């Protein structure tokens, strides 16, 4: 049991981070506001989770301007995708072993 838990990635412990990664797995890129709408998070909350994932280099951030407005888009890195898949696999085994 302990072994199984070790495979779960600490970076994905919070629901918000799992949510961000899920969205970025199936979308090439996503901007801040769309993420906020999808996940129902506040600005500050989403920003801090995004920063945490960026520090792990699981996501890449691109900042640009659309007209005068800053527009930040996020995408999952190869490393992030790999980590997320492993996390999912660990979840799956955990569920199966408990059935």
């Amino acid at each position, binding site marked *: 049991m302990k072994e199984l838990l070790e495979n779960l990635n600490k970076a994905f412990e919070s629901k918000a981070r*799992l949510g961000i990664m899920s969205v970025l*797995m*199936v979308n090439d890129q*996503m901007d801040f506001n*769309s993420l906020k709408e999808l996940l129902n998070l506040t600005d500050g909350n989403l920003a801090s989770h995004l920063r945490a994932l960026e520090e792990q280099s699981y996501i890449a951030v691109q900042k640009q301007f659309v007209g005068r407005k800053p527009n930040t888009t996020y995408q999952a890195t190869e490393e992030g995708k790999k980590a997320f898949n492993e996390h999912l696999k660990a*979840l799956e085994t*955990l569920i199966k072993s408990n059935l």
Partner: protein
Amino acid sequence: MNQPKDHLDTLHEIRDLMEKSSRFISLSGLSGVSAGIFALFGAAAAFVILQSDSFFYTDYRAALDHTQVLWLLVLDAVITLFLSFVVAMIFTVRQARRKGQAIWSKTAQRLTINMMIPLVTGGVFCLAFLYQGYIGIIAPSMLVFYGLALINGSKYTLHDIRYLGICEIILGLIATFFIGYGLLFWAIGFGVLHIIYGIVMYRKYEK
């Protein structure tokens, strides 16, 4: 977060988010039904137009030699397309509101672009046939290109639309071997199939 049920919930949420963020799920089945009804009316109008100018009671292809008849048919097609589109949009906007999905979201934009590529290609192709005088092949081409557009769009919306696309393509291909019955195939493809599909979708997702 340590109970198996929690983990299962987490997996469900992940799947939900993946689905919601990458697919436009607000297409209403009623849009299909209304488009089908308009298509049947459009086909009926086309039939009347063809009959009115034909000396031969059964062979309406003779009427197609008259440009005036052709223009009436094009007008008929444009009106049918316009009415189907407007009513389909009304149902879809309503459905999007109900589901709390933005109507012009990223997913909606991707769906539109990916459907428009085969559709516009097919449209220009059919106009070329019309211009060159290959009238008989227009209805089958419309069915085939429309089917391809649906299959291309199915990656960005409800998956079921793929099967409608396959049916349209098969019907279109059969129609290419029965030149002269184009209107009949067109009415089946755009009318009957849309209505059946719309009812199935309505019962599956909106009841």
